[in-house]
Every structure is written in C-alpha cells, then in structure tokens.
C-alpha cells in the first residue's frame, strides 16, 4: 500500500491506510492504569497527522474480536525519519488490558492512519489544547507540529488527581504552557479543566485563539459551548465506539448540525474524529 491520497466520502482527504503487524518496541507504565506503548510502524508514523487514529488489535483470536481506535500519541523518529509511534492507553477493558500487559517483541495489528486530523493554526493565532484524562492522547503530536510552526501552545489538562497528569515535563520541554486542574485539587485548579479554560478565555480579550479539545463527551460539549460563547473557533475529537474505522459499518456516528434545529448522523471515522465544535448537534441525544 502506498500513501495515495483519496477523497474521503465524508469529504476529506486522507492518506490510504496500511495494515501493519507492529512490534512492541517498549511499554512504559505511567500508573496502574495508563501506559505508553511504542510500536514499530514506520509507514503509519510517516503518514499520520495529529488527531488521526489507528485501529488496533493485540493478539489473535476472538478476545477481542474487533479492532479498537487509538489516537497517535507521539511520532518516533530516528535520524529525523519517522519509524514508530506511541499510543497513550488507559486500561478500561480487554484491549487496553492487553496493551497494558504487552511486552517488547509482542505484535499489535495496527491499521492507519485514519480519520480527519486537527487543523493546525499558525501565529499569531494561539493554540489552546484542552485535554480530559486520556484525552491527552492527540496533543503530543499536535503540540510538536504547532511548535514547529512557531505557534504558541497552551495545554489545559484535567484529571481526577495529580498522579494522572502525565507528560507534563515533556510538554514544558517543548515550550508548551500548562494550565492544570484536578478534581481532588492535588494539582492546579480543584475542579474541572473548564475552570482554567474559562478564566483564560475571560482574560484573552482580543487575542486570536483556536481551541482544540479531546476528552469525555460532556467535556467536549462544555468546551465547544464555552469557546463559542467567547467567539473562538474550536475543534473537538469525539470518541465513538468504532467497528471498522473505515466507513463500512456506520457504528461511529455523531449528530452534525443541519440548519438551526435539524441534524444528521455523520460517521466520525471519516468525517471525524475531529469536528468543528460548532458543527456537532450537542443536544441531539
């Protein structure tokens, strides 16, 4: 498979996905539930844009049966050439359990890159990335891309507790400003990540800002509404159960606005996972 560009049916150009039996290079456990899995998948790594995802299946057999979607977290490079990628994974079920337990040399089937990436902005527009929990996943790659363009980047990052805020130094090292929140108040604001975000929006006055969000859906909704009320553009990465990741099954739909009150369902694996915050019909279900 080359990397031919094709027009996605939901109206976006994506490189042709490839299916790679990727070897595990390294598995770093960040906590009792989170791990970062490094995979040798040069073709995918070279083609992936921030916000895109891969469909992953560890092991053979029927448990799990279907692939699962994961954002491309970091792109790994050797001598400047992309040769691997990492996944930031949170243990919630059978696949993530296997990713958590994976050891060097294991093979993980990896199909990608897939989906519509975030739209990178250039200076003077500032990039504000808003992450809830494992919603951090697309933002390492996005931060690198944006910083390479000289764009100012802030990460608003919320979790239950400070022990679940990862990669803080990684972002600081790349000149990313951090605004943190924890539900137990152990680091940053006590409460949700929308707290520091709203404060910043209040203070941002005339600055141009693009808000990127990834996290649980109610958070995405809150962020999109907040951005809109402050007249800022937003892009959110939605998380849907995906059967195929390729437009085949229609499992992954989100309600997209259709005039003032209507909506229609769009497959998030093709039309997303990244959508403009304004496009989603948040009230639809």
């Amino acid at each position: 498979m080359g990397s031919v560009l094709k027009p996605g049916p939901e109206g976006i150009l994506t490189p042709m996905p490839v299916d790679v039996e990727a070897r595990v290079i390294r598995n770093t456990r960040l906590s009792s539930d989170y791990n970062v899995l490094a995979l040798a998948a040069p073709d995918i790594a070279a083609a992936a844009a921030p916000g895109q995802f891969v469909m992953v299946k560890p092991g053979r057999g029927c448990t799990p049966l279907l692939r699962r979607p994961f954002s491309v977290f970091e792109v790994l490079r050797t001598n400047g050439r992309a040769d691997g990628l990492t996944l930031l994974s949170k243990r919630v079920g059978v696949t993530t359990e296997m990713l958590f337990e994976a050891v060097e040399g294991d093979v993980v089937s990896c199909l990608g890159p897939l989906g519509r990436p975030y739209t990178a902005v250039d200076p003077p527009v500032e990039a504000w990335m808003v992450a809830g929990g494992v919603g951090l996943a697309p933002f390492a790659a996005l931060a690198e891309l944006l910083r390479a363009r000289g764009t100012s980047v802030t990460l608003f990052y919320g979790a239950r507790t400070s022990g679940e805020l990862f990669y803080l130094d990684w972002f600081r090292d790349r000149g990313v400003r951090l605004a943190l929140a924890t539900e137990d108040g152990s680091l940053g604001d006590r409460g949700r990540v929308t707290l520091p975000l709203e404060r910043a929006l209040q203070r941002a006055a005339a600055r141009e800002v693009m808000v990127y969000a990834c996290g649980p859906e109610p958070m995405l909704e809150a962020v999109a509404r907040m951005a809109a009320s402050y007249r800022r553009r937003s892009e959110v990465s939605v998380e849907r159960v995906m059967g195929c990741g390729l437009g085949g099954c229609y499992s992954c739909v989100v309600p997209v606005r259709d005039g003032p009150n209507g909506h229609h369902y769009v497959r998030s694996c093709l039309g997303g996972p990244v959508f403009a915050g304004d496009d989603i019909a948040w009230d639809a279900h």
Partner: protein
Amino acid sequence: MTPDLSVRIGPLTLKNPVIAASGCFGYGVEYAGMVDLSLLGGVAVKGLFLAPREGHPPERIVETPAGMLNAIGLQGIGVHRFISEKLPELRERRATVIVNICGSTLEEYVELARILSDAEGVAALELNISCPNIKEGGITFGCSLTGTYDVVSAVKKVTSLPVIPKLTPNVTDVASFARAAAEAGADAVSLVNTFLAMAIDVETRRPKLSNIVGGLSGPAIRPIAVRMVYQCRRSVKIPIVGMGGIASARDALEFMIAGADAVQVGTASFVDPFIWTKLIDGIGDYLRRHDVARVRDLTGTIDTAAREKEWISS
C-alpha cells in the same frame, strides 16, 4: 492448473464466490481506494430504502464473545442518491453490485426494484426481509412464509434482475422460507442475516444498544449459519449465498461444502479490510491442493457417510 473460481447465482456469473456483505462495506466506494472492487465476486451495498434514513442513535454496536451486536437502524441515503452519487463510481471501478433493498411495505420493495432495474450497473437485488433492528416492515415479511412468497413474487414481476431474498435465521425452520422463496421465483437465497440479541451493562442496568436489541454477527454464529445453509441445500435447488462469521478461506469453504454457491463476509472485514484477496487466494490454494477444477464443484459436497479409520503416526 488454475482452478475456475467462477460461480453462478441464477443468471448471474460471479468471477469468484466472495461477496462483501451488505451493511458491512458501506456503499463500496468507501473502500475503493484500498481494495480493487473489481476483484471481488460482488459487493452487496448497504441496505437502501426509497427515502434517506437517519438510523438509530448511538450506541449502535457492541462486541460480544466472538461476535458483535449491531443496531444501526439502516441509516442510508435512499435509493435516488445512491444511484446518482455512488453507482457511477462503482460502475467505474467495475464492481459487481448487489443492491440490498428494504421496504416498510410490499409496495416499497416493488418500487425500489423498479427504480434499480432502470439504473445502469446493478447486477442483482438482495431483498432484505430479515433486518432485526427496525420495527416497521422488513422482517415481518421474513418471518412469514406468505410474506416471503408475496414480496419475492411481486418483485420478480417488475424486474429482470436476479432477485435474492435474504433470509432471517430467527425462525424455527429456515428451509421452509427458502422453499417459499424458490416457489415465488427467487433466483437464489442468501442467509443468514443477524440473530436478534441483546447485551446489558450490569453496572447501569441499561441495554448496551440504544435500540435495546440488535443483530448478532461474527464467528460466534457460524456453526448455526452453516447448519442453516446445509438444511436449505437439502430443501431447494436454487443457488444459496451463505454467510455468518466467515473469517478465513476455510470458513468460506465450510459454507460451500455445506451447500452454498457463494459466500458473503461482513464482520470479519471490519477486523481485516484486506481480507478479500486472502479469501480468494485461500480458496484457490485449497482447490489446487485437493485437485478440484472448479469451485462450484464443491457446493454441497459434504460427506455424511461414516468416517473411516486412518492410522498415521501422529
């Protein structure tokens, strides 16, 4: 020897017996960049009503042991947009297009058949009288012998395209439905559609699907589907398109040996979207290995005689 992989589904000849199953391959065009559609025996496109449909709210699928439930609710663009927006590309890609049609009424099936008969590039019609996920129409035909007979004969009257009613497995005696279809003039039958099923999240006590119930597909159902194909084969002479959990060439061959003339693959293509050449090549290898000249010579060759004893120094 290059084995002959072509099969005949009534008046239609497919270049090989491997068809993408309806609802599992979008409108085909989604895969056109990845898969050479002209290499497939056929492409059964997503079920179409006359009008566009929104389908059910999420969650629409859930994984189950060796299977999955779906309750998509037949989201679709309707037959007119299909003809204008999708069919031209399918034609251009030289896909053998099987259009899966759904009706709330008998008249809707007839109207769909009429419209699609006038369109260029449709190879056959598959009548979805077996979708377990929608309330109106469809499966009420598929669960009644006279309903099945009536819809098939009404459609046959208005089209010269091959007509393939798709049978539901949610019945006591699937072979009687195959017979009803055959008597009504069906060119073939396809089976199985999904099994009505459900899953509950015990923590919230809510159904995992928004529609409460959905259809079970995937390897889990394969042994039941094979049995149903076997029963139908012993009951009707018309071609049978078998499906349900096929994930390897061996699985496809199992259906053919049980009595299928061709097969469809759905769920497994989600796991491996490049499965098609593996299946086609795998069938070819098997034929060579077993010195079978034509794949169609396999159909229904199950040997139910007593096993012989063999002694190999295992």
